[in-house]
């Protein structure tokens, strides 16, 4: 083996201070306590806080001024439009994109996309991407020394049906290390990108799996500072979605929120 091959990879994603997990966990606790205090004194705080220094790479990347409240105009109340023709059926099955089957625990992930009034959002696009069962992304900057799977890319798309329902077949992603702090690991997750019926409802999020021991340790998951909001990102095991001798099933319902004006936009249809 050459010296080059054994040199540690240069990784620009590493946080310079190399905090310990203990320190990061304490920071998360302090941040959550401070947010609870602010909410108790009457401040309205969003579900995801963008000023969350335990997530080190956010420190220079989050706006420090308050978001400006604005009345949405037509282009913001409408959305890029999709249809069943825009996505091929195979795109929602991440296990059949190659010659062979990927390794890992086969899953069905199904859910319903609705707005805040519970109305289904039909004909909209959901994109997902994820690591393979060993916790490795196909992305070239992922340097986790876990194996790539030649039969797994980890990207999929689906269009919601008339009831707002979508479904993917995939494999369970593995947890993976990252360089936020020393010995940092992300809980297993699938990234979701979702279009609502209004551009204001655009959502990018992550779906997690029940009982993951890494939840309390992860600064990204904990940028969502209320327990009940974090719980909403955990897929629910559903035995009715589990198919015999084939795949386990998880339900992940998604609610996109927009300003009051989005209520009227959708009533007309």
């Amino acid at each position, binding site marked *: 083996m050459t010296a080059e091959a054994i040199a540690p990879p240069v990784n620009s994603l590493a946080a310079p201070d190399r905090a310990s997990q203990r320190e990061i966990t304490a920071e998360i606790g302090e941040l959550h306590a401070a947010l609870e205090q602010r909410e108790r004194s009457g401040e309205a705080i969003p579900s*995801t806080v*963008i000023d969350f220094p335990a997530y080190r790479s956010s420190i220079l*990347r989050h706006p420090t001024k308050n*978001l400006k409240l604005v009345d949405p*105009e037509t282009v913001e109340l409408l959305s890029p439009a999709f249809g069943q023709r825009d996505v091929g059926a195979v795109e929602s099955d991440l296990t059949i994109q190659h010659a062979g089957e990927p390794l890992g625990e086969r899953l069905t992930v199904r859910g319903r996309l609705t707005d805040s009034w519970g109305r289904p959002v039909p004909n909209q*696009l959901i994109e997902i991407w994820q690591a393979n069962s060993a916790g490795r992304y196909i992305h070239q900057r992922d340097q986790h020394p876990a194996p790539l799977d030649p039969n797994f890319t980890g990207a999929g798309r689906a269009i919601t049906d008339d009831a707002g329902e979508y479904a993917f077949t995939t494999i369970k992603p593995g947890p993976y290390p990252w360089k936020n702090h020393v010995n940092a690991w992300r809980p297993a997750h699938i*990234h979701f990108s979702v279009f609502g019926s209004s551009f204001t409802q655009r959502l*990018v999020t992550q779906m997690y799996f029940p009982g993951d021991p890494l939840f309390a340790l992860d600064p990204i998951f904990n940028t969502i500072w209320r327990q009940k909001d974090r719980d909403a990102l955990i897929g629910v095991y559903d035995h009715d979605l589990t198919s015999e001798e084939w795949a386990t099933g998880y339900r992940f319902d998604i609610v996109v929120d927009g*300003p009051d004006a989005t209520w009227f936009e959708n009533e007309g249809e």
Partner: protein
Amino acid sequence: MTVPPRTHRATPGQTVGPFFAYGVEFDRMHQVVDPYAPGAVLLGGTIRDGAGAPVPDAFVEIFGADSDGRVPQARGAFRRDDHTFTGFGRAFTNEDGRYEFFTRNPGAPIGRAAFFAAIVYARGLPDRLHTRIYLPDDSAALAADTFLSSLVPEERATLVATRTPEGHLSHDISLQGERETVFLAF
């Protein structure tokens, strides 16, 4: 008609993380129109962090009306068939933090200021950020815009693109710092 109370709690957003590229890429995604089509304009700029460093792992989405002010609603926002204008585009930043779109100048109702709706996503950004990119050309409409008028001049400047001598649009975005872009809540 009044808006009834919300019954469902919104799913919270999360960062796109570092490895989004292969998950959200689609063919010719930054070419809302063909670069050589009549009326095509280049809309581009640099995304910077609070230290002024370019952000190479971000992406921007735009959604804009057609030149006549009509908002496209044809299905197939990913389609690039050279005759359907979908108004929607997505662009990754490159190593220099630069994003680029080829699109059309959006129109607006008479007397109103025209803009692209835009959303910024990045590794290190815990949730997506909405903003607007206004066209600089109609100064009367910009002056009459109630939202822009509510901002101080420095803030307002972060929302209005610059027209280059070639007719293109230049628009930098700062996630943080002195020239921090105005981001929106609806």
